[in-house]
């Protein structure tokens, strides 16, 4: 008798866990769908400021390597201009581009540190 009860408890426990998992999946689906239907939040001034600071720091590192790119400088200027006009989406995108360009220039300077010798006339 006690063995039957024990086995029945295990069975009902499994059913309850299954129901709970199903509820979680349903909730996640609803949340995902609602998220997909709501447009992405516009970038804030804080987002821009964080991205701009990161880009500026990377560009400073490129400058220390004497290898800044005109395109990174232009993207930084563009970001600042867009932010001044209150267009933080454009400002954020330009700041991110500036950071990517600055990082590429750092990569170039680092990889060229010894590689230039391969091109030397000997």
């Amino acid at each position, binding site marked *: 008798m006690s063995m039957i009860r024990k086995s029945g408890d295990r069975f009902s426990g499994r059913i309850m866990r299954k129901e709970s998992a199903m509820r979680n999946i349903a909730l996640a689906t609803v949340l995902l769908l609602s998220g997909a239907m709501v447009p992405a939040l516009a970038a804030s001034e804080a987002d821009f400021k964080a991205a701009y600071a990161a880009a500026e720091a990377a560009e400073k590192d490129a400058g220390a390597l*004497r290898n800044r790119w*005109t395109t990174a400088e232009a993207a930084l200027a563009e970001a600042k201009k867009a932010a001044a006009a209150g267009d933080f989406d454009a400002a954020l995108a330009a700041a991110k581009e500036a950071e990517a360009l600055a990082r590429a220039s750092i990569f170039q300077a680092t990889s*060229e540190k010894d590689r*230039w010798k391969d*091109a*030397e006339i000997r």
Partner: protein
Amino acid sequence: MRVRLLFPSALTALALTLLAQLSFAADAPDPVADAKAFQKYFTTKFPKLKPDDFVNGPYSMNEDMHRQWEEKEQFPPYEFALEAGKEMFATPFKTGKTYADCFANGGIGIRQNYPYFDEKEGKVVTLELALNRCREANGETPYSYVKDEMASLTAYMAFTSRGKPMDIKIPNDPRALAAYESGKRYFYTRRGQLNFSCASCHVQSPGERIRAEILAPALGIMNALPIYRSEWSGMGTTSRRLITCNSQTRAVPLEPQSDEYRDLEYYLSYMSNGLPISGPGARP
């Protein structure tokens, strides 16, 4: 037994030291060997060209352009700058002195000796830098390194040195060798978003077109400076030329007469030792 163990390790250490010395010797700057290999590269690449003709840049790379250049030289576009430079050179400063007082041989026929390594300063001194130092020493404000006044002065000084072989010296001073090596490194290092080095255009592709322009060979490139460029509708100094090259590869140019540019000029001029001064030049 111990002696037997020590002997091979001593041999290994000796071999490693020798190897290290050999690799150091291979990496140590050797300007004489470099210049020989540099000149051989270009004379082999363009076997029909007389060595002295390299100083004519793109005009030496193409027969049609060479004819155009010969005609241009009848009424050269740099003539006005030359006349202005001659007048400026002779005009006294507030102190009553002139540029002639700042240079050997009164500044006449000395272009081929610039840039030189100043052992007191421990740095390379270019002609443009020496001219501005002369102005400052006489209480005058320095000229812009990229504008007409500097181009006119250097044009006149180059003109008085035409035909003299470039004669750059690298003294036996580790700082001079370091400056030479720094110039070489700058020349071959890729930079800018377009990932070009000076050598990408002027070693790997002289005579080829980049858009509408024919690229000049690096050999003799300094001998023709300063230049009148039709593209600029005006004269350009060595500083202007280097700054423009950097911008064209989308690299932020360095400040005029920065150590890197001075070293680059030193290296490139040394590579052209023996080739005649042809400045001021004219370029498309």
